[in-house]
Each structure stands twice: as C-alpha cells, then as structure tokens.
C-alpha cells in the first residue's frame, strides 16, 4: 500500500492505494502549519478504511507550499546572492530581473566578486579571500541566514564555488549556502536565479521536512517519505531539505498525471480547480506539455523543465462580489479558511463554493444559509466561472481542433459541462483527489552526473554507458524496467582536464512498480 498526499493552499488531500486500486480518498483543510492538516488527513483515511501504518510501503507528498512562498513573497529567509566573475558579468548583476517585491522580501543583497572560470578552464580572476571576508561581516550584521553562490562556468569547474563557500562558512558557521552548480545547468542568469530561490526557501524547507518526518514517525509510519519534483518524479525527503526548488512545479504535474491515470486519456486538456486557482495544462501522450525556454516563477526566469500551465484565480474559495450588474468571482480567495469563511459553513464571506451549493451543483455545508441568493445572480456567477475557465482552455490549445477536457480537483463542481472547444467533458471517479493520486503514482528517476573521459570516436558508447547506468539506477530505485525512458541528456566539455573530459548528466524515469505486495 502507498499513501499519496497533496498539500494545496486550501485543501490537503490524501489517498490510500493498493497497486492501482484506490482504497480510500479524503479531503481535509490545509492548516497554517502544514503538518496538522496532514495528521488530520491521515486520520480521516484510517476512519474511511482502517489500515496498519506498518503495511504502508511509501508515502508520497506533493506540495505547492514552496512555490506559494515565492509567489506570495512570504516566509522567505533573508538571503544574499554572491556571484564570482568580476570583471565580467557586471552589466547584469544578481537579482537583475527580479520583481522589486520579491527582492525586498528576501532583503535581497547582491554582490559581485572576483573569480570564475573561462570556458577553457583558465581563471577569469583569482578568488579574493579579503573580499569574501568583508562581505561575510556585512551579511552577519544584516542578519542574512542563507547565501546563494554562483560562479561563471561552475558546471565546468565547481572549485571556486566550493572554495568561496568554505571561506564564508568560516566566518558565518550557521548560514545555509546553496551552490549553483548543484542546482542548475549552463546559463548563468537562470542557474543563479534558481539558486537564489533555493537559498531563500532553505529554512522553510528544513522546518517543514523535519516536521513531516516527525509527524509520520509519531503516527507509526516507518515507510520512506518522498516529495514529488517538477518533472513528476520523486525525491527523498532529505534531498528536499536542501533543494526545495526541485519541488516547484510538482503541483500541476501531479494533478495532470493523476488526471491521465483516472481518465485513461493521453491527449487532452486538464483543468484542475482547487481552492484558490484553476490550473489548465495539456497532456500529450500522457505527459504534461512542457514550457519552452522562458519559464518564469513569481516573475523570475529559471531554466527548469516545467509543465506549461496557465493559472487563473478561480477556485472553491474565490470571493464572489455582487456590487455591480454582474457578479465577479476571484481572483482573491479565502484560501485555507474556507471552512470558517464560506456562508454554507456559517461564515460571513460569499465564495464560489456557496454559489455551487445555491445552484444545486454541490451538497456541502448548510444549504439553508444560501437560500436568500437571487437565482439570476447565482446562474450568472456559474456562467462567469465556466466562461473564464473555458477561455483559459482556449488559450492553451495551440491547434484549432477541439480536445477532450478532464475536470479534476475539488473545485471542479463549480463548473458546468458547457465548454466551447471541448469534444467531451470528463469527470473521472476520485476526481477531487487527482493531485494526491498523481503524487502516489509519481515516477521514480535515476540519474548519472559524472565526468567521463571521451576518447575520439567513442562518444556514442560513452553516452550509451551513461544511459544504461541511469536506467539501472531508476530500476534499482523501484521503477518498472519496461517503462524506463531517458528523459534528459546534458553534456558539458570540461576543457581543463586532459583526455577530452566531459561532464555528462543523464536522467532516466520510469513508473513505480505497482504491485500490492511491495
């Protein structure tokens, strides 16, 4: 048995799976501290279907918590960005394109220092110890707790980043340091941005990951805890502590893969309506369509592989306003306070959920509390929501041909089946928990990241060797051998080493073996 959990802004969903069979699924409220909501979800699962925690082989968790922290510019650690590369790169210093709000939220300090390598391994300029020591003093006084370090051509030669980190740690033993060569690939600005994002999330990640591991242990689980990553694969919780940025886009990936699993459709539009937003993405051959080069997160450009998703502010918790001629829905939401705030739960705020209940599309809370709403207004609000989601679906389609639409997420009860541009609207079983199911069926990856000597004429065989190794690692980690595919190959010549040395990164991904006895 496996448990999949999805922590969203409003709801924490959980499912219990045996192989491909959904044994139980629950939806509970997200708590401000995250972990209480998870404890509640696990208890609710056990009430629905009693099970022995010792019989659970793995717990998979998908969370939008970290990306939300960036989008909301909240709960971020005071962070400094230090780049080694002077006198080059000065025209575009660290944080150059960042939204002002986010820079302020991390107390963003950017430093340019000497250092860095040329493409052929020469040094741009030697590292200056005194420069770093002086910066460390400043950072100490400013209360900076996390540092993002980047160096020109560090994917080719990481020595400068490592040396600078050790100098900084001598001065500031308690800071977290994120090194760019461990976070991203060639492309200085994007790699540096991802590293800064990672750095400002380190404290939050540590707090949450420690809390989660403790919570599960207290509840009697001894199964490993995984977090799902951007590409739909899993990482162990210990890794997430250090690289929270890798969980970034896991939310949409999980809901889209969950939707594919539940509907059996490979090529379709997926609309995931949560408490705060509706996320629209396209599945191609069962996988989320990827965004191209320019992927911006909270206004920051990174070079991660991410699903191409359009988010609009329509969800179950969206505020409904009736001051004008036509009611408006969202984009603001009552978020995780839906169960205190919504009218049907006795609260003062008119939300999209109240509209769905008044329209007879859902049976939640106390219907009597929305009896006073004018039927014309309710109808207009439902039409507004569907029209806005339909327009997002329309924007995501790149061909004029209509596609099937799969509606998932608890908030999808807000929408009618009337979609222009859809061949058919599907609402699969367990639709409300597609996220958690996506997390539970997340794939497993195997990676090789090593320097290989590539003798003349031997490139193909070296690449094949790296691919086989990555595949073997995915299988060893629990992937079904026949499902393993190579999803990424990256090659960077390391010119300062003899023997045509090349840093080769290969990533293989496969489905987790879905047997009930595992």
């Amino acid at each position, binding site marked *: 048995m496996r448990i999949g959990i999805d922590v969203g802004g409003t709801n924490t969903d959980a499912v219990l799976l045996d192989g491909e069979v959904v044994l139980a699924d629950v939806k509970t409220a997200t708590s401000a501290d995250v972990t209480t909501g998870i404890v509640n979800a696990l208890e609710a699962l056990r009430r629905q279907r009693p099970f022995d925690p010792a019989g659970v082989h793995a717990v998979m968790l998908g969370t939008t918590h970290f990306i939300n922290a960036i989008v909301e510019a909240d709960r971020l650690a005071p962070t400094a960005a230090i780049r080694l590369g002077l006198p080059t790169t*000065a025209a575009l210093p660290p944080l150059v394109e960042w939204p002002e709000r986010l820079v302020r939220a991390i107390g963003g300090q950017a430093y340019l220092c000497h250092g860095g390598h040329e*493409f052929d391994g020469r040094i741009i300029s030697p590292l200056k110890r005194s420069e770093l020591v002086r910066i460390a003093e400043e950072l100490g006084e400013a209360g900076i707790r996390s540092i993002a370090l980047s160096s020109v051509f560090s994917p080719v030669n990481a020595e400068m980043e490592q040396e600078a980190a050790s100098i900084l740690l001598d001065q500031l033993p308690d800071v977290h340091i994120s090194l760019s060569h461990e976070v991203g690939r060639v492309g*200085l600005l994007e790699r540096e941005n991802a590293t800064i994002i990672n750095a400002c999330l380190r404290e939050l990640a540590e707090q949450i990951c420690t809390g989660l591991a403790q919570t599960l242990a207290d509840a009697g689980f001894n199964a490993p805890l995984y977090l799902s990553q951007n590409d739909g694969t899993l990482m162990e919780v210990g890794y997430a502590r250090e690289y929270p940025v890798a969980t970034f886009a896991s939310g949409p990936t999980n809901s889209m893969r969950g939707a594919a699993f539940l509907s059996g459709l490979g090529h379709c539009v997926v609309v995931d309506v949560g408490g705060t937003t509706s996320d629209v993405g*396209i599945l191609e051959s069962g996988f989320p369509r990827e965004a191209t080069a320019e992927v911006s997160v909270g206004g920051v*450009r990174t070079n991660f592989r991410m699903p191409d998703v359009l988010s609009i502010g329509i969800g179950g918790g969206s505020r409904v306003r009736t001051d004008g001629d036509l009611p408006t829905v969202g984009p603001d939401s009552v978020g995780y306070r839906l169960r205190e705030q919504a009218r049907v739960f006795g609260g003062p705020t008119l939300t999209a959920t109240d509209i769905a209940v008044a329209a007879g599309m859902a049976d939640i809370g106390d219907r009597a509390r929305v009896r006073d709403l004018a039927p014309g207004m309710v109808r207009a609000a439902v039409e507004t929501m569907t029209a806005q989601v339909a327009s997002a679906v329309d924007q995501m389609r790149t061909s004029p041909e209509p596609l099937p639409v799969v509606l998932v997420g608890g908030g999808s009860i807000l929408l009618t089946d009337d979609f222009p541009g859809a061949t058919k609207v599907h609402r699969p079983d367990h639709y409300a928990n597609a996220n958690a199911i996506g997390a539970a069926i997340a794939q497993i990856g195997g990676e090789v990241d090593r320097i290989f000597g590539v003798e003349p004429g031997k490139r193909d065989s070296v690449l094949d060797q790296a691919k086989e190794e990555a595949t073997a690692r995915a299988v060893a980690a629990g992937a079904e051998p026949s499902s393993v595919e190579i999803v990424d190959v990256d090659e960077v010549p390391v010119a300062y080493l003899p023997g045509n040395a090349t840093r080769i990164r290969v990533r293989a991904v496969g489905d987790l073996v879905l047997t009930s006895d595992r």
Partner: protein
Amino acid sequence: MAFELTIDHLPDLSLGAALLGTGGGGDPHAGRLLAAQAIRTNGNITVLDLDDLADDDFVVPTAMIGAPSVLVERIPAGNEPVDALRALERLLGRTATATMPIESGGINSMIPLFVAGTVGLPVVDGDGMGRAFPELQMETFGIYGCPGSPLAIADERGYSGIVDTGQDNKKMEKYARALATSMGGVGYVAEYPMSGADVKRTAIPRTLSLALRLGRTLREAREQHRDPVEALSETLSETLYESSGVVFEGKVIDVLRKTDGGFTKGSAKLVSFDGGSTCQIDFQNEFLLARVDDRPAIVVPDLITVLHAETGEPITAERLRYGHRVRVFAIGTPEIMRTPEALDTFGPRAFGIDLDFVPFEQLAASKIGSSV
C-alpha cells in the same frame, strides 16, 4: 520612416531576433536586458530608416563576436561595445552619427541598441545579412564593396585591439576571432565604418523592424491559438523572405556541442514522432545544413530555424536539448543573398560543406518528385 523604440518593443524584438538567429547569434535575452537598462536610463532609442540617412553620415555598426555557448555564462561587464566604438572613433578621428546591427539575428540585434541607448546615438533599421551568420566577413556590406576594417575589439577589462586588414575581410575575421578567443571566447566589436551612402547601397533594409514584426506575429498567434508556423508564413510572404515551410517534425534525441576555434560547433539529431524518419542539423553557431533521411533539405544561406512544436518559439542551438519536441522550419533567403558573389561568401562551400546551394523550395519539390 524613423520610429522610437521603447522597452515595450523589446520582448517581441528579441523573439523575432531569436528566429532570425537561426539557432545562433547568441541568446538575445541577455542583450534584451542590456538594451532595457540603457532605455530605462537614457530614454527611448531612435531607429532610422535607410532613407533617413544623409550621404555623409558616419555609421559604425557594433556587435558581439564569439561562441554563443560562452556568452550564456560569461555575460558582459557592460563597457565593452562602447569601448570598441570609442577606440575606432579615436583611430579614425571621426565621431559616429549612428550605429547599426551587422546581423539582425540573436543578441547582435540588441548590442547596437545598448550602445545607442548608452551614448545617445540613433540606430539604423537594417543589417548586413538579414539573419545571423557565424563569421564577420559574411556581410552584404563587404560583398558589395565596403571593407570591414579597421575594426576595434574590446573586452571587459578596458583593453582593446585594432585589426586592420585592408580589403581582406576574411583575414579580418581570423584575426578578430583569435583576439576574441584570447579575451575569454567573447569580444565586442565596432566594424564596417561606412558613410550613409554606403549603408544605403549595401545594407539589407528594415530587418530590425522585420524582427519586431516576426516576434509580434508569434506572440499574437499564441494569443489567438493559431498555428504559429502558419502565422509566420503569412507574415513572411509579405516581405523579402517570400517562401517558407516546415521540413521536419520530431523529437531531439542527441545534441553534440563543443567550443572550437572560437565558435560553438556541433550537430543535433532528431527523429520523427512515428520513428520512421530522421533529421540531422549541423551548426557553427548558426544552423547550416538540415538533412532529412540523409538528403539535404535546407542549405545555408536559407534560414534553418528550430521551433518548439506547439508554441512556435524558436530554440537556439545553445538551448536545444534532448527530448525537445520541435518543427524544423525553412525560410527562403531573399534573392539578394542568393547571387553568385553572395553564395561565394556565405554559401555552403564557404563553410566547408561539399554541396551546391539549392533553394529549399526546389529541394522539397525534388523530394516529392522522386518519391512518386
């Protein structure tokens, strides 16, 4: 007609420039940030039409030279291109009245904007190739009689060099490349100093506004969920670049890339979605030759672009990665670029490719003919 270029133009311009960059030319993104900084500091930039130039104007194009794969890491310090311009002005004892791009593709569509914004010069709407090419002598300026040198090249340390090879633009390229390599793989140049009359005679007109228009077409196609390739073809048909078409669709299965002799060289292999067909694209900074099932399908100087299969966004050789789903899109180069003297300078044999240039439309027609 002259027009004012604002920050709001830059996203479309850089998208269109990436397309005309035909895989090379350097990622325009860093250039776009530089241009935006200059405009933010000093205001909008005046873009002059060729017709706005006086015959005795003194125009000095500015550009980046080097390997795009180096540029994405080793971004500029900011002083380099202006230093190059100043060094050339000192040598010639004349002050430029305008700058302009040598190429309208990639980052070099943006460097002159950065220079113009920084020192307060107008930019001429035109260039010397109507796309991007890897080498400095591959310019209509030179083909039609304007030497590229004396040329000034500058680095981030405030050092500069002068290359003067008289009429020999090929030699100029060799020397300048060697300097750029010793500067860390990327340098910044001021070259092809020309009179306004020379520019009007030798430049390909309105290629900056062409890039702007192509970028806008792509963005609007996406907004209107139209097929981006269809939209591009439609826009192109109204320009000097009349013909265009998709020659291959598939997935990238291998990219070989190395920094060699100051260039990014390599090749990409693609396989069709049904697995039945393959495509290989060779590049030296820019894509030079696309072969489908071992037969030439697009040959330089026709433009080879690789577009994201769904969104139509151009992907540079630098960003091209295993697993990308793409369409290989050919754009026929204008007639002025297909003359014998033009082909002599940037036809396939100029790159050591043992093929005669055949327009892609004819290659496509002969393939259909032979398979019937």
